[in-house]
């Protein structure tokens, strides 16, 4: 046996079924939250805000809000996906099965990324009810969304392996990821920031993600699209490498 395709498919389907089982939490909740952002920042406040780079404020925040959801959902889906079997002890089955790092990643991370993509499609559809927006480079946007979903699902997987209690599981997304996303230009252009904050903001990696996605929507952004893609791919490679080391050493998985 080389690569256990059936094993991979089993993990993938089971993880997607888990999302369906918890549809209120994993699908409806983020859609509702994002809709509220659109209502408050897009419709209520957005009308009083100036256009940014020739884009209406309501439309300007669409990529940022989409990314906000993508990051948090990809991370939490994947981290819960691997943490729960560790917590309940059912990880024994995965570890004793003929599945390795490849099958596990494609199964867990693939399912988490798929859920995020489904969510992204729902959010983009929902956004049309609140703001007018268009996508300048739809194929690149789809590729970028997939790249971000996969990268942060991998990141979530690492968190799920690292966490040894529920508090740790939520601490990185809540205390690091969420603030960085809010400060990463989700609701504004970093050009609007006074010096030196506009320079300091460039140290925030989420700035490149938000602007990368914004570029695929409107053809302009605060940073180079090449840099955005390059950093996202580098993050993905870093996460894959960390996971490969985790499986090789058995850290937090095998005694």
């Amino acid at each position, binding site marked *: 046996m080389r690569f256990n395709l059936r094993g991979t498919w089993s993990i993938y389907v089971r993880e997607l079924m888990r999302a369906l089982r918890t549809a209120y939490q994993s699908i409806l909740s983020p859609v509702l939250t994002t809709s509220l952002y659109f209502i408050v920042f897009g419709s209520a406040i957005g009308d009083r805000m100036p256009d940014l780079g020739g884009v209406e404020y309501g439309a300007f925040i669409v990529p940022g809000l989409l990314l906000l959801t993508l990051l948090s959902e990809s991370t939490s889906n994947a981290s819960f996906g691997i943490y729960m079997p560790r917590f*309940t002890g059912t990880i*024994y089955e995965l570890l004793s099965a003929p599945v*390795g790092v490849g099958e596990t990643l494609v199964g867990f991370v693939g399912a988490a990324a798929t859920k995020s993509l489904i969510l992204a499609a729902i959010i983009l559809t929902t956004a049309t009810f609140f703001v007018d927006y268009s996508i300048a480079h739809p194929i690149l946007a789809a590729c970028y969304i997939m790249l971000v979903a996969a990268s942060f699902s991998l990141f979530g997987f690492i968190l799920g392996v690292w966490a040894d209690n529920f508090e740790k599981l939520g601490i990185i997304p809540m205390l690091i990821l969420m603030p960085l996303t809010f400060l990463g230009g989700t609701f504004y252009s970093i050009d609007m920031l006074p010096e030196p904050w506009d320079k300091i903001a460039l140290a925030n990696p989420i700035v490149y993600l938000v602007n990368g996605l914004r570029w695929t929507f409107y053809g302009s952004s605060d940073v180079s699209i090449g840099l955005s893609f390059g950093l996202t791919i580098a993050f993905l490679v870093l996460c894959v490498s960390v996971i490969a080391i985790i499986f090789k050493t058995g850290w937090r998985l095998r005694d």
Partner: protein
Amino acid sequence: MRSISTIASTPMVTLRFCCPSAEIMSEPILNISGLTKVYPGGLKALDNVDLAIQPGEIFALLGPNGAGKTTLIGAVCGLVRPSAGQITAFGHDMRRDWRSARARIGLVPQELSTDMFETVIRAVSYSRGLFGCAPDKALIEEVLRSLSLWDKRNEKIMALSGGMKRRVLIAKALSHEPDLLFLDEPTAGVDVELRRDMWALIEQMRQRGTTIILTTHYIEEAEEMADRVGIIRNGQILTVDDKDAMMARLGRTEARIALAEPLEAIPEALQAFPIELTDGGKEICYRGGDGTGMGRAEVANLTKTLIAAGIDYVGIDVRESSLEDIFVGLVAEQEAA
């Protein structure tokens, strides 16, 4: 002693035999050599363990809590990373060809670890897929029926009793038709009826050629089912032997003969017997034999000799030592050493 066939309380459906386990293998199905596991804290859970398991046998691994039984199973199944040593299963080195080897190994863990929100049939079907097997509804039905789970197939696992949850774990382990099955305390915390059902099921699996390694605290379970027995303590295998050979080698007959009148010393006529006076001379205690029944014959001779010597007795209590006695004796012996 009852045979398995007489204790099965639930009619069992014969499991299909479609795995390569029918192959006659001359080499051990599992070969463990120099296996050592030292945990980060310094605890040596396994200490240079050598063990060879023959195809088709039921091997019982006995040992007190913390002896290293679960660590040994975990090392073979991929849950524990060995510190040293080599494990070969079906001729595959578990470090290099672990995929091929693991595909043929099943594990029923000690803990009731299942996805509580999943239905029985989905959980079992998932396990089959995880091990790379194509969906087979008929086989899943057979497995579930054999464990009396078919009627519960659409129930969530969280709604099942503890015994039923353990059956689900066994069904999951059997779903990919393993050739080598590890049962870690399979009957811990289950009622007598289920325990006997499981014994019958294990016997059925043996008949279809599955090699079974089980750990248990119930020595009678090992005595009932095992072909061979290994005793482990402090991470070291104390002895491994055929169960009957072990009973013959280490077994004893103990007879207590209550005398009508106490004796002050053992009479000359009885000097040849392995006896001693106990209870202030009111009782003769015989300890001898070899676990094959020789002791009982010797006790019969002893009683004849007593009569011939004019020594009257009022009661005889004869008992053969069980596997439990042997186990306790060996463990105590090692402790003393």
